[in-house]
């Protein structure tokens, strides 16, 4: 599974992307955020206010309860500020 991070999520985790193997118990975007939070203090910092973090699966916006099965690329990022 490829994970990609943007803006201050990327800065807090300290890398723009990574490949990761997930245990079968991680089924949803919400599960994945919880799992990542336990990987180290940089992840805990990035996800400390998990409810503001947005996610995308294969470049489409998804909600925290979305299943991640079959995803090739999952992205986490703050609320968008383009335009």
């Amino acid at each position, binding site marked *: 599974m490829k994970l*990609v991070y*943007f*803006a*201050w999520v990327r800065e807090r985790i300290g890398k723009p992307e990574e490949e990761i193997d997930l245990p079968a118990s991680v089924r949803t975007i919400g599960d994945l955020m919880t799992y990542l939070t336990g990987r180290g203090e940089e992840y805990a910092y990035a996800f400390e206010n998990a409810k503001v973090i947005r996610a*995308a699966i294969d*470049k*489409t*916006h998804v909600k925290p309860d979305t299943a991640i099965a079959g995803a090739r690329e999952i*992205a986490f*990022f*703050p*609320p*968008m*500020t*383009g*335009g």
Partner: protein
Amino acid sequence: MTVRLQPEDFDIGAEISALTAGRTDVGAIATFTGICRGAEGVTAMTLEHYPGMAEAEIERHVAEAQSRWPLAGVTVIHRFGRFSPGENIVLVVATSSHREAAFAAAEFLMDYLKVSAPFWKKEERAGGDDGWVEARHTDAVAAQRWAADKPEAAE
């Protein structure tokens, strides 16, 4: 539909000409240009985006605008990279036979770009107090109004 993400600047006149050249059915052109502001000590701004997803999100909303209003053409250009105050950041051009559709589509696209297209702004400020721009609540409200609005009938 033209959607481009690029570091380069754009030429509003040229983009309008591209949508109107050789046709006489366009009666209305609405454009919006977003510019990097120098307010509150901002000395520069960096725009980060999610390549691939940004194009897809914009194209999805342009298609939605085309289904809501009778548009002759739509162009969206969003720059990424580092900008100084006064530089262009985003351009939306919508053309139609009548002004209502052109204005509505341009506003709709800007409202959705703000809240749905994966771009993030980081400001550099005098004194080194850099920081990511926070999403404005008013932008979320502006986007939500389209969920309730039915488009007006074409004329």
